[in-house]
């Protein structure tokens, strides 16, 4: 019996260790490499940076170069890019929430048979390549694209709107691409809500709109937070959308990182940019975790 139990617990350890090994291999080690590069000095070599540790003449040299981080502080391009990324991600998240909440709400309240169809419709676009879908938006938004042609043909506008290569296009792209990530957690949350609570509110004299504000909205807080995190975090580092839909003056940190890496071939500075971005994102993630831990503790009580 004891042997069986032992065997069982070993099996359990093994299964639990799988995600840890995965995280170690594909998250922690790459992170350590990036951190290492961000502390090295750039050089004309392959790869284009110097090693941190060198051993020559019986001297072990460990050289940590903080200059890359210092450099980020000196040039306000980086600061502005970070700020702009955070701002863009924030407003895109708010827009996703405004568009996604009603969609998730009506999906959750739809009849069971319709519900699954709607869910499929939300997920379906992700079956096409992300890149192709963003390219498609170029065709829609450009001066003689679908949207402008349509608006002009119905006489609403007389000259084409300039949308492509502006921040508006970036917002459209991000909201479009990340909407499912907002809808799905909200939908799951709203679906399991106890509808008798809404009846109780109505029974106690609360009008429908007020019931939504006082009962539905506070109870879907967990879904709102989860959805917002899923949109905000990748949106901060988004590179494809601003470079395809945004203009020359669209400043986002993902784009800056790309340029630093490929155009300037300055791996150490690019790595420093990535590290700082990660540190910035740690703040909302930590807040999210704390909220979840608190909720879990409440449930347990």
């Amino acid at each position, binding site marked *: 019996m004891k042997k069986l139990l032992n065997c069982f617990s070993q099996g359990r350890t093994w299964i639990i260790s799988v995600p840890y090994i995965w995280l170690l291999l594909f998250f922690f080690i790459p992170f350590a490499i990036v951190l290492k590069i961000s502390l090295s000095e750039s050089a004309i070599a392959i790869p284009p940076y110097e090693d941190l540790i060198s051993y020559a003449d019986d001297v072990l040299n460990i050289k940590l170069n903080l200059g890359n981080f210092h450099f980020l502080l000196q040039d306000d391009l980086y600061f502005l890019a970070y700020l702009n990324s955070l701002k863009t991600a924030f407003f895109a998240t708010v827009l996703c929430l405004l568009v996604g909440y009603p969609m998730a709400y009506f999906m959750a309240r739809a009849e069971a048979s319709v519900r699954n169809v709607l869910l499929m419709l939300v997920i379906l676009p992700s079956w096409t390549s992300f890149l192709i879908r963003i390219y498609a938006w170029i065709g829609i938004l450009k001066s003689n694209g679908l949207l402008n042609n349509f608006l002009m043909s119905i006489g609403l506008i007389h000259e084409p709107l300039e949308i492509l290569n502006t921040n508006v296009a970036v917002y459209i792209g991000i909201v479009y691409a990340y909407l499912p990530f907002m809808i799905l957690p909200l939908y799951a949350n709203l679906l399991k809500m106890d509808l008798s*609570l809404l*009846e*109780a509110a109505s*029974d106690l004299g609360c009008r429908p709109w007020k019931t939504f504000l006082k009962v539905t909205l506070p109870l879907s807080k967990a879904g709102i937070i989860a959805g917002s995190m899923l949109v905000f975090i990748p949106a901060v580092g988004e590179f494809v959308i601003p470079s395809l839909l945004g203009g020359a003056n669209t400043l986002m940190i993902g784009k800056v990182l790309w340029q630093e890496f490929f155009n300037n071939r300055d791996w150490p500075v690019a790595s420093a940019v990535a590290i700082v971005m990660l540190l910035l994102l740690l703040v909302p993630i930590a807040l999210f975790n704390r909220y979840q831990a608190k909720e879990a503790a409440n449930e347990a009580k």
Partner: protein
Amino acid sequence: MNVATSTATMADSAKRPEQTILQIQQVTKMFGDTKAVNDVSLEIRKGEIFALLGGSGCGKTTLLRMLAGFERPTAGRIILDGQDITALPPYERPINMMFQSYALFPHMSVEQNIAFGLKQDGMTRNQIGDRVAHMLKLVHMSKYARRKPHQLSGGQRQRVALARSLAKHPKLLLLDEPMGALDKKLRTQMQLEVVNIIESVGVTCVMVTHDQEEAMTMAGRLGIMDSGEICQVGSPTEVYEYPNSRLTAEFIGSVNIFEGVVNEQAEDAEELLITSSELECPLELSLNASVSAGMPVAVAVRPEKISVSFERPEQAANWVKGTVSDIAYLGGISTYHVEITGGRRIQCTVANVARSTQDRATWGDEVYLSWDTASGVVLTS
């Protein structure tokens, strides 16, 4: 429905003058092709506790939800205190409901839950505070004012739910399976407590339950429902002792039913004689039903009205001989299952007055079962 009116006249003879507060007039509710509630008319009196009793799917919950306003009747009217509320949305009705699952708002404290309805009325902060404190005291929950619902036990949640539904001084209180979420022991305790609270407030109350014991303990009057219709309305005693149909007789408590035919009888006879093929002797009852000779009827006799003896009873009617085939010993009482000629089993309950079991009939004993003329009830439907 004539059932409702006939029992209403019966109760009119009671001393208290009764004032009707709620009228349900020919209410029907269809879900697709199924009639969940079929032409129900009912009058609820001011200050009473009325229980709708029935099995699952009998339409009692639908009827209650129509009173609350969550369902709109397909036909018929609901009139509360002279006002037609049939088309009013729930948030405009002076009716509050205690939900089966209590439906307490999980993100609000006990206090906030109770204050929720009051805030909708635009009361001042002080008024709300006073009212909440009063309600908490009424249900003995003052200590728990700041707790969240998930920190409370089942019984405590129920008290909060009751306080919340009473806070707004509703004209009508609805209880949906009020004890459904409690375990048996707590249930009996809470039944009496809830009744005490409701009576101290003096609110009219309509409750829905499938538990006859609960209905009989808590309610002043019952309405037995089956397949969307009200079969009988009356006080617990009336419904138990004078069921008007086989259905109510069998739904409330246990009953032995004998099929038979009404005998010819003298005009001035005070007793009714019925011949049943199941019994050797005739059934004799005090006259309590309008029947005519030759009519097929059923006679219901409650188990506790039947006595068990070893000697043949002296009476000419209302007895039968049989063999004890089963005894369910329940402590205070025992239920005997006695097999009579023809294989039919009769149930009778015997109070275990003496501690010794010596004189009691036991398995395989031949016994005589008998009851008196006042015990049987004639059922024509």
